[in-house]
């Protein structure tokens, strides 16, 4: 009898493999954790979009929880995301923008047209800060805690649903 049961082992292994691979089919291949989670926000030295003479560094992000949003005028999804960012700003979330691979003129025009939820926007025409953040397509958002450590990375579009279900809970979670 036990010998008969031993014959079932390959079948069970096969069933386990099927379940494993079947689950893999339903997973989003683009979803993966950021390499920067629990690490310090990378150092930068960038001017602001408004003022080419005003230079900021990462001390900007110390002291309170901040959502850093990487956007660009050339990015259509960023336009769709603006209402959600404005809603977050209304709810008291501090936002800092990174105008990524853009021109000053286009960036300013974008904010005039779609609204400006940002306390300040950093101007990153070469994409150096974006590169250090591992950004591979705007929009991307990074939640930085009061110590300047990256706590959450949102790749792509923040939907109205995400505002309530993901972003606000994360902001509250890392509140000092």
């Amino acid at each position, binding site marked *: 009898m036990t010998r008969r049961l031993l014959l079932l082992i390959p079948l069970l292994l096969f069933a386990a493999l099927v379940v494993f691979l079947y689950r893999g089919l339903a997973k989003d291949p683009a979803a993966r954790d950021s*390499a920067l989670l629990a690490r310090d926000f990378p150092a930068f030295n960038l001017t602001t979009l408004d003022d080419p003479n005003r230079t900021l560094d990462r001390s900007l992000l110390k002291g309170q929880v901040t959502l850093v949003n990487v956007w660009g005028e050339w990015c259509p999804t960023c336009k769709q995301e603006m209402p959600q960012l404005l809603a977050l700003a209304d709810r008291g979330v501090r936002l800092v923008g990174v105008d990524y691979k853009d021109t000053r003129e286009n960036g300013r025009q974008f904010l005039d047209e779609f609204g400006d939820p940002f306390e300040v926007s950093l101007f990153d025409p070469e994409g150096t800060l974006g590169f250090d953040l*591992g950004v591979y397509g705007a929009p991307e958002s990074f939640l930085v805690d009061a110590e300047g450590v990256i706590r959450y990375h949102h790749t792509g579009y923040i939907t109205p649903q995400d505002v309530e279900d993901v972003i606000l809970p994360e902001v509250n979670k890392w509140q000092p």
Partner: protein
Amino acid sequence: MAAMTRRLLSICLLAIVILTGTAAIAAIEVQDFEDPALMQRYEDLTTRLRCPKCQNESIGASNSPIAADMRERVAALLRNGQSDRQIENAMVSRFGDYALYDPRLDARTWLLWGLPFGLLAIGAGVVAGFVLRRRRRDGRESASAVLDEHERRRLEALISRHDAGSHGRRNDGGAP
């Protein structure tokens, strides 16, 4: 006629393949290195590093802007005299393990690398078990087939008596 059309068609297809192929290559900028060894390392690295924006393209093969940024960074780091390992680290720290086609062996990936060898060991164990059991059984059978001195003499006696008996009978039967 049909053969001719087919040949014409295949020439057209070939032309399309060649033309689009060169177009794709033309879109990727050329990096010039004084040192051919550096050039070789650049080519190796851009083949080994994966474009984070694409599902399955090396940064050397991809046209996406982030792949171009990464190639540029690889070239700059090579000129700075960094080792392959350092350059890979620079990419992994920003874009995660996804940036490497060959995942490294560490605490999180030992299962990935070890599983094939583990399965091979289990398979070898099962086969060895079968072989050993078969050999032990065969050994028992041949051991029981070996006769001691007394038995052998008895066997010879039986055979010779049998031979003599059958001879006798045959002779008897053959007589008219």
